[in-house]
């Protein structure tokens, strides 16, 4: 997934970013609202992690603005404001979930996965595709009942396909899930990871649509 993290506390932001990247997610970190507004106009993200008390304003304003212009990117609020009324305000402004600081990084990952599943139209963390069984919450994949191990990057690509089964995802969309914003990528990186995935889960589930991209057979 490509995630936008908006957080002004550097130490916390760095730890969150490192943890998400270790899970194979691509993370862009911005410490202020103004930068975030600009970036969200030009780039599509799978999830926004939004702090509320930012140096140049309140995160709720940003959320209201992007919802007003029809942007439905899932948003999870990370904040030290623990009051229920703040939370109701955040949810009413269009947030999908609300994490109060301090939180466990593991809990944050679980919440992001739950929100992501909800947006994919399949809130059930357990999926079956052919002889594949996938536990999205725990990132486990079984082929004919046998568990296989995926690296973080392999999971990131596979997760993109899992969230929209049957839909064609462009190479560019899969690249976004793989790399940090602005990072250098090789031209054949997506093909390399698709090839590795096919070796592990078999060639059938992931189909190539020539000249367009890839599709997970539903």
């Amino acid at each position: 997934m490509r995630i936008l993290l908006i957080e002004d506390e550097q130490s916390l932001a760095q730890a969150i970013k490192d943890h998400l990247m270790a899970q194979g997610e691509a993370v862009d970190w911005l410490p202020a609202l103004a930068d975030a507004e600009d970036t969200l106009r030009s780039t599509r993200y799978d999830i926004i992690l939004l702090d509320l008390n930012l140096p140049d304003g309140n995160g709720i304003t940003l959320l209201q603005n992007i919802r007003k212009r029809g942007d439905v990117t899932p948003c999870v609020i990370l904040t030290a404001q623990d009051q229920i009324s703040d939370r109701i305000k955040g949810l009413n402004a269009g947030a999908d979930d609300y994490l109060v600081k301090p939180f466990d990084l593991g809990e944050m990952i679980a919440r992001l996965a739950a929100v992501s599943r909800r947006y994919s139209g399949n809130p059930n963390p357990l999926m079956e595709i052919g002889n594949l069984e996938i536990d999205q919450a725990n990132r486990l994949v079984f082929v004919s009942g046998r568990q296989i191990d995926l690296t973080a990057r392999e999971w990131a690509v596979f997760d993109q396909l899992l969230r929209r089964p049957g839909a064609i995802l462009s190479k560019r969309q899969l690249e976004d899930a793989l790399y940090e914003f602005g990072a250098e990528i090789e031209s054949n990186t997506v093909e390399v990871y698709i090839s590795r995935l096919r070796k592990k889960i078999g060639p059938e589930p992931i189909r190539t649509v020539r000249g367009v991209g890839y599709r997970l057979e539903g």
Partner: protein
Amino acid sequence: MRILKMKNSLIIAIVTRVTVVMTLTWLLGCALALLVMQDEMGEAFDSGLQQTAHRILPLAVDYLFEHGDGPAPHRMPVTNSVPNDEFVAYQIRDAKGAVLVQSFEAGIGAFSAPLKPGFFEDDKFRYYTETTISDSLFIQVAEPVAHRHEALRESISAIIAPLVVLIPLSIIGIWWSVRRGLRPVTLLQEDIRNRGSGNMMPIDRPELPDELHPIVIAVNNLLARLKSALTAERNFAANSAHELRTPIAAALAQTQRLRAEMPAQDANTARAEHIETSLHRLKRLSEKLLQLSRAEAGVAVVGDLQDLSPALLLVIEDFSRDPRYIHRIAVDFTGHDTLLGKIDIDAFAICLRNVIENALIHSNDDDPVRIWASGGTEAIPASIHVANQSPVVPPRILAKLTERFERNNPSSKGSGLGLAIVDTIMQQAGGKLVLLSPAHNRDSGFEAVLQLPGDDNSAA
């Protein structure tokens, strides 16, 4: 209590004083009137005696001249139609005092009055003596003193009797007038009472009399200062939360990253785990201290009934998806579509979170915690019940659980602050925290009941 209230009542004091002064004034007025009346009546009666003497004397003298040969005393004839119960009697006496002529009522023997013109009074009669024919004949007219006394008594009764009715009527009139007159004070009193429960709006009653305006101004100034102090306290609590939570969040996240990046067998793994555990404890304790500071900042008090359902659902959802407590929360809100209470929604959430957390950590990991509602009618304000299946808490300890740092089990995982915070908030809002062990209709368990404050006029 009622007697004390009556003693301190402004209406009672004013009515009593006005009534006493008015009654005394009336009685004094009556007494003066009676004195004057007695004097005037005496003069009128005396004048009557004089006129009677003047009118009878010529007739009596003529009669004497015509019948003077007979034995004395003579009685002048009276008409049969005149009843013989007249009050005035007379005698015609010669200069030696012998009675020559007398009326029927005069009795036997001469009057005791001396033969001297003018008035004379003994125990029974008041006399008037007049002389004629060169002081050789005297007429004496007598009237019973009792007659005069009777007239005076009747006059006193005529004056006093209406007072018996008028004084109670006056008290009722004064009571009504004073109550009407003090109506602006009652209105002001109601306004100030309403301000005591979270409503910090200034009092706006331009129609109040001039005497009350200084009070309104003073109360409004006080309300403004209170509002400002309360806002400052609340802002401080909110800012403290942010300032404290963010660095703890950063330290916890960094520690968790450190642990994740350490090789499995690293010698420092245990140390990193200790740091993480300590940070978790610090997180819990700071959370409780922030809640306590909010409770003491008076966050619970609100002016109107609040819909607490969103807070109830969000707090229960938090616990339901916490991996530590998954499948342990059993909720039954049948028949309670909305939950209303006169308490701040955040303060209510703090209370609910604490009682649920308390029930979860003080019972076995597999035992359910039941949450349900009761009341919520016009007559009975709503209550939220949270019960676990813990062993029975002895009454001695149960009574002390709302004190700070008081625990049932000293080695328990609780902070010792949760129930103290709940108790403070509920009291502040006008509600109540009730602790039961065993739980209601059970042989064991611990039950916390949040009795929510209802509306002043009709319960929630």
